[in-house]
């Protein structure tokens, strides 16, 4: 871990000012990912700006009837919040399927969006990695890639975003509110994370001096028909091989609206509007769900160790949609 300076910010303006003065400064909140990366010499900030005392730690209703999650609310406090549990149970489920109780007590909602990939090569400074050191090459493409992406990859990077929470937020079409030197912005969730393309070192569309202030949930919470299915290599405390957030609007057995987001398969939570629209006005049944799964995974490409994810994702999509439609009870 490098030596660094430490500043404690108590309001947003001073936090942003601090950040804009030093290009290699970083905000720190929960620290569960940044300190990890600093110990591996992957992240090497020269200054940490501690934002834990910035008052962004509340959950409150928005004017449009949605819910605003302050960026510094912990994952645990979000998952167990009465309103979230009641109106956005999909989000609760997703959060609680990630990490451990201890980490969820530390990690913040804003930080969850900014966590970096778990790619073995990204984490190991002895190996080349375009995300860590642009231009050095991607070791995963021809290497060990069990955890890696099958959708939206580039020849520069096949890393996946590791979050569970973000998969639910993508399905819920949350809005990320940020502020920076150039004022406030609201970023639709689907535009927040990026695909690797030729710039795999850049994970999100957040500017260097910008800070997430809140994650706003729209009024529609899909509390009646939702499912979060996480498939992983052990029963707990493991990152997803594939995860699916499914949310349905139903009229009897007829589907009026569909939201489907996948984790563990791409550099960002994966949505396919085209696939979601397939279900509009259709009945909830295995064939229709299978068609959705095929459409979502159309064009998916495996790299050897991870090729099974293509088939697994299809199975998981069908299963999650069945759970959401209550065709079968989640197990």
């Amino acid at each position, binding site marked *: 871990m490098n*030596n660094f300076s*430490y500043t404690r910010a108590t309001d947003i303006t001073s936090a942003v000012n601090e950040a804009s003065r030093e290009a290699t400064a970083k905000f720190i909140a929960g620290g*569960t990912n940044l300190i990890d990366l600093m110990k591996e*010499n992957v992240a090497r900030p020269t200054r940490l700006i501690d934002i834990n005392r910035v008052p962004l730690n509340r959950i409150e209703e928005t004017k449009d009837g949605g819910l605003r999650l302050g960026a510094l609310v912990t994952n645990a406090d979000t998952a167990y919040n009465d309103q979230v549990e009641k109106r956005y149970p999909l989000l609760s489920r997703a959060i609680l399927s990630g*990490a*451990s109780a201890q*980490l969820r007590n*530390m990690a913040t909602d804003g930080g969850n969006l900014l966590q970096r990939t778990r790619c073995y090569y990204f984490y190991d400074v002895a190996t080349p990695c375009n995300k860590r050191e642009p231009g050095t090459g991607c070791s995963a493409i021809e290497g060990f890639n069990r955890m890696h992406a099958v959708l939206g990859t580039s020849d520069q990077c096949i890393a996946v975003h590791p979050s569970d929470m973000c998969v639910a937020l993508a399905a819920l079409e949350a809005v990320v509110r940020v502020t920076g030197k150039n004022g406030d912005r609201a970023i639709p969730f689907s535009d927040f994370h990026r695909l690797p393309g030729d710039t795999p070192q850049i994970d999100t569309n957040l500017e260097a001096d910008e800070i997430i202030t809140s994650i706003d949930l729209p009024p529609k919470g899909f509390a009646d028909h939702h499912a979060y299915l996480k498939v992983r290599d052990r029963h*707990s405390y493991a990152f997803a091989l594939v995860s699916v957030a499914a949310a349905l609007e139903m009229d009897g057995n007829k589907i009026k609206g569909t939201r489907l987001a996948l984790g563990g398969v791409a550099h960002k939570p994966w949505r396919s509007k085209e696939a979601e629209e397939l279900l509009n006005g259709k009945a909830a049944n295995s064939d229709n769900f299978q068609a959705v799964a095929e459409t979502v995974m159309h064009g998916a490409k495996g790299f050897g160790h991870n090729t099974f994810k293509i088939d697994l994702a299809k199975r998981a999509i069908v299963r999650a949609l069945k759970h959401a439609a209550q065709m079968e009870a989640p197990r």
Partner: protein
Amino acid sequence: MAAGAIMRVEQNTQANTQTVSLPSSTKITLTINGVRRELQVEPWTTLLDLLRLNLDLTGTKKGCDHGQCGACTVLVDGKRINSCMTLAIMKDGSEVMTIEGLAQNGALHPLQQAFIEHDAFQCGYCTPGQICSAIGLMREGHATTADEIRESMSGNICRCGAYPNILAAIQQAMAHRRNVDRVAGERSVNPIANERSVNP
């Protein structure tokens, strides 16, 4: 790799050569196991290293130093966290409870007693983290069934494989606590007093 080629692997290309001397440390205040302490810390010192190296509170263990095993679990302001993933300086003003602060006047906490009775450890290295985590679990109140406790304790790896005994110990301590609460409830209506009497 071609034989004879020279390969340079730079672990850290961004050495801050201008910071050749240690920057001055900062004074923080922590209340550790009920004792208020003023401490000089460097910004990069984790809470775990502060406890183990500076304060000789070695009951809190370092198993992975990356939030992947739970051996370093302590309670900060009543919540279980991984002290390895926390810079001490970030917790200025907080209350920290470690395994050393659990027994009161030599009397073991019911959970410690239950761990001994149920043989809920072998090598003992994950044990302080398991116990602190279980204290946190009991305070949170979200996990009650066996499956919920197993899930909620999955952030604490026990390589010796004592999991079924850890579960049994926690269940015993939870039952004990319900009894204490019930008895205390009959005597008094002050739930906060009960909380303190059970959880130091």
